[in-house]
C-alpha cells in the first residue's frame, strides 16, 4: 500500500472495527499486527475457526463479522508485523520476517489491547502454571484443552474458561476464587446500573449456572496460593480458604486476576497516562474520540482502558470517525450523527464496569507477597530483593529498577511493573510511584535489523 491515511496497530475488535469504518468512508488503512491472523486475543483465530468450535461460545463467534469486514480494497493487512518504535509524524518502525521498515501516515491508531495482570505467588514460574487466558489461546489456535486443570483467581474470564472447558468435555477439577464475600456484597450496589448491560450480566449468570450444574468444586475467599512440583510433574497447589489449609493435585494450574491495558507502545510514544484506581492499572489519557495528547495519535480498545470486546469495537468506530473527520473525508456533523447510536451502546456496555471492577478487584493477597516470591520473571528478582531496595531508599520505579534489575529483561517490565509498583506503594510515607518509562524498542529486534535502517531510505509496504 502506498501512503496510507491511517495506520492501525492491532487487529483485535477495536482495530478491526476502526479499519472497517475508515475504509468504507474512503480512507486507506494499513493494519499491522504481530500475530499471524486477525482477531486479537479475544477473537484469536476466529477467521479460521468460524463456527467450527461451538464450545468456545457465541461471544467468540461474534468476531467473525469483524474479520470478514477486513476484506475491503482500502484495507491492507500485514501480519507477523511487530511495531517496535513510533516517532512523531506519526511514523512507525515495524519488523516482519527479519526485516524492518519505516512507515508514516497522518494518523496512527494504537489498538494494542490488554494483557493478563501478572499473578505472582510462590511457584507461579513452574511448568504447569499458566494464565487462564493462555489456555484459552491454546484452545482457539491449536484445539488444546487443559488436562486435570484447576482454575484459580478472580474475574469473568475465569468463569468463561470454566464454561468452555465444560462444554468441550474437559471440566476443571476445581474453581478456586479469591473473591471474598465482602467484595461480592460491595459490588451489589453497582448492580442496578449494571442492569443496563443486561445481556452481559445474563451471560455471566449463565456461566455460573453451568459451573454449578456440573458440580465443579468451588472455593471462595482463597488466599496464600502456593504451587510446587509433585511427582511425575504434577502441580501441588495449596491455598487457604474458610480458615482451612487446602491441598490439591493437578496437571495444570490456570490463574487469572483480570486484564490490564498493554501500555508499552502508548508509553513509548510519549502519550500521557493516568492511574485508574478502580482497576489498579495505568491507561493512556484520551478523550471520547480516543484522541491523545500526541498529534495524530488515537487509542481505542482495551489498550486505552479495560472495558471488554464490545466497548473496544465501539471505541474503534468512534476513533475512526474522528480520524475521518480530521482527514476531511466526513464532516463534524456526520461524525457526530453516525456516532450517536454507538455512544448509547457505549454507555450501556460500560454500565457493568463498576460492578465487575468491584466484584473482581485484584485482592491484596497479591500485593503482600512472601519474600521468596519471584516478581520479575526475566531477571528472577524476588519480592524480598525488591523490599531490600526500598529499605535502601528506593522510592520510585527508576531507582528500584536500576538497583535490582527488575524489569530489565526481555519482557521489559510487562510481567513485573504493576507488582513492583505495589511493593513501592507499601511505603505509604511517599507519594504513589509514577509510571515507569517504556523504552524503545517496544519489542526486541536484532542489531543487524536496526543497523539496516541506518543506510536505507524510508520504504513503504
Amino acid at each position, binding site marked *: 500500500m502506498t501512503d496510507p491515511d491511517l495506520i492501525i496497530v492491532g487487529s483485535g475488535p477495536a482495530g478491526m472495527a476502526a479499519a472497517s469504518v475508515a475504509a468504507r468512508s474512503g480512507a486507506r488503512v494499513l493494519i499491522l499486527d504481530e500475530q499471524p491472523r486477525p482477531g486479537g486475543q479475544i477473537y484469536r483465530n476466529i477467521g479460521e475457526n468460524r463456527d467450527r468450535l461451538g464450545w468456545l461460545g457465541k461471544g467468540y463467534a461474534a468476531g467473525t463479522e469483524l474479520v470478514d469486514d477486513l476484506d475491503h480494497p482500502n484495507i491492507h493487512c500485514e501480519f507477523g508485523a511487530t511495531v517496535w*518504535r513510533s516517532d512523531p509524524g506519526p511514523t512507525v518502525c515495524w519488523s516482519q520476517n527479519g526485516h524492518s521498515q519505516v512507515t508514516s501516515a497522518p494518523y496512527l491508531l494504537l489498538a494494542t489491547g490488554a494483557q493478563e495482570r501478572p499473578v505472582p505467588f510462590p511457584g507461579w514460574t513452574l511448568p504447569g502454571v499458566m494464565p487462564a487466558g493462555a489456555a484459552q489461546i491454546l484452545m482457539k489456535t491449536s484445539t488444546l484443552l487443559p488436562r486435570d486443570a484447576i482454575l484459580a483467581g478472580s474475574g469473568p474470564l475465569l468463569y468463561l474458561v470454566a464454561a468452555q472447558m465444560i462444554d468441550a468435555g474437559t471440566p476443571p477439577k476445581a474453581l478456586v476464587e479469591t473473591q471474598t464475600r465482602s467484595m461480592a456484597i460491595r459490588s451489589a450496589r453497582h448492580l442496578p446500573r449494571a442492569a443496563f448491560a443486561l445481556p452481559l450480566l445474563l451471560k455471566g449468570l449463565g456461566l455460573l449456572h453451568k459451573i454449578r450444574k456440573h458440580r465443579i468444586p468451588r472455593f471462595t475467599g482463597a488466599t496464600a496460593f502456593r504451587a510446587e512440583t509433585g511427582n511425575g510433574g504434577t502441580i501441588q497447589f495449596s491455598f487457604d480458604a474458610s480458615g482451612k489449609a487446602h491441598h490439591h493435585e493437578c496437571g495444570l494450574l490456570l490463574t487469572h486476576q483480570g486484564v490490564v491495558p498493554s501500555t508499552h507502545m502508548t508509553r513509548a510514544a510519549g502519550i500521557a497516562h493516568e492511574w485508574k484506581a478502580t482497576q489498579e492499572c495505568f491507561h493512556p489519557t484520551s478523550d471520547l474520540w480516543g484522541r491523545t495528547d500526541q498529534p495524530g495519535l488515537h487509542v481505542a480498545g482495551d489498550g486505552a482502558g479495560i472495558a471488554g470486546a464490545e466497548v473496544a469495537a465501539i471505541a474503534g468506530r468512534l476513533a475512526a470517525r474522528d480520524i475521518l473527520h480530521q482527514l476531511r473525508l466526513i464532516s463534524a456533523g456526520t461524525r457526530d450523527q453516525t456516532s450517536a447510536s454507538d455512544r448509547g451502546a457505549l454507555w450501556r456496555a460500560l454500565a457493568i464496569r463498576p460492578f465487575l471492577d468491584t466484584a473482581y478487584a485484584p485482592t491484596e493477597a497479591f500485593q503482600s507477597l512472601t519474600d521468596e516470591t519471584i516478581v520479575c520473571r526475566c531477571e528472577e528478582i524476588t519480592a524480598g530483593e525488591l523490599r531490600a531496595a526500598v529499605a535502601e531508599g528506593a522510592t520510585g520505579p527508576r531507582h528500584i529498577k*536500576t538497583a535490582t534489575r527488575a524489569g530489565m529483561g526481555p519482557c521489559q517490565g510487562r510481567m513485573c511493573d504493576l507488582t513492583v509498583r505495589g511493593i513501592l506503594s507499601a511505603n505509604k510515607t511517599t507519594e504513589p510511584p509514577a509510571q515507569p518509562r517504556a523504552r524503545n524498542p517496544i519489542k526486541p529486534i536484532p542489531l*543487524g535489523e536496526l543497523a539496516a535502517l541506518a543506510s536505507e531510505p524510508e520504504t513503504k509496504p
Partner: protein
Amino acid sequence: MPLQSTETTIIGGGVVGLSVALGLLQTGQQVTVLDGADSDLRASQGNFGLVWLQGKGSNYPAYARWTSEAVSDWADFADLLTDLSDIDVHLEQPGGYEVFTEQSEFDEFLVELENQGKTLGKNLDAEILTGAAMRHRFPELGSKVVGATFCSRDGHVNPLKLLRALRIAVTRLGGQIISNATITNITPTPSGGFSLIDRSGQTFGAEQIVLCAGLGAMALAPQLGFRTRVRAQRGELLITEKIGSPLPFLSSTIRQVDEGGIQIGGTKADAGLDDGDTLEFTARLAQHAVEVFPQLEKTRILRSWGALRIMSDDGYPVYAQSSDHPGAFLVTCHSGITLAPNHAGPLAKWIANTSDAPNLEAFDESRFPFLQTV
C-alpha cells in the same frame, strides 16, 4: 522546620555526590546527601561504565594526570566499596581499545593520543594497530575496521552496582541520604551557612555545601556566584539480550556488562534536556556494533535510551570554592565513574582542607571568563 544542620551537605545523590560524600565521611565529617526525585535527570543511571584513560586530557595535561591517578586507584577503591557495602562492582581493567571504522577519525585520534602521551609518558602504555593488525589479533573482527588503539590501563565497572554500593557505603559510614529533595534555591545565611529549599518547599540548613547536582548546577551554580556554566550533551545507548560467550575485547563503544548483555554507546548530540533516543542515532550505533563485530548481527536489542552528559564550557572537570561564600563548593564533570576514586580521595581531602590535601588549582573555574547573568 529546618532539619538539624550537619557539617557538610551534598546536593546531588549521583555517583559524583556519593563519591564525595564517602570521602568526606572518611575524613570524619558529618555528611547529609540531598538526592533529587526519581524522575530527575540522572546521568548515574544511564551511563556507560567505563574506567577509561586513553584520549583523556590530550590538550589538558592536568586532566590527563588526574585521570591516570584515578585509573591507578580504582582497584583499591573497588575493594573498599566491597568491604563497606558487600557489593562487587565488577571492576575489570583488562585494557581497552578505541576502534575506528573511519580513517579520518582514526587519524585525528592518533594526534590526541600522541599529545596525551607527551604528558603521561610510559604511564599511557598505548599501542597503535592498523585494521589488518587488529584482524590478525581478532579474526572475528569486521572488515570495516580501519584501525584501533589499545591502552593496557583501560577498564570498566558495572555503573548501577557502583551507584548502589556507594549509597550503601555512605549510609553505613553514618551519612544520611534524603530522597525526593530536589533543591531549587540556595540562600547564604548571615552566619556563613546556607538555607536550602527543595521543590516541595521543604527547607534544609547547612554549614558547608558541595554542589554535585549534575545538570542541576545550571540553576544552582549562579545562585552561589559561580561562573561555571554546564550544558547537556546527549549520548544514546543500546543494551542487548545477555549472551554467554565473552566479547573478544573491551572497547570504548562496545562492552559486555557482567550480567552478559552488550552495551553500545558513544554518540554525541546537543538535544537540550531531552533524554530520549532517536531512530537515527540508535541505528548508527547498531551499525557500528555489527561493523566491528559482525557476529552480533542476530543479537537482539532490549532497550535503548538517551543520557545527558554534564559538560562544562571546555569539557573538563570543575572543582571550585566560592570566593563570595567560602562554605560553598562546586564539583562538576562528565566522567564521574572513572574519577570516582579521586572524588572519594584527594578531592574530598581538598574540600575538607586536610593537611595532605592536593593542589587542585588546575580545575578551578578561574579559567572561564566571568559572564554577567542576564
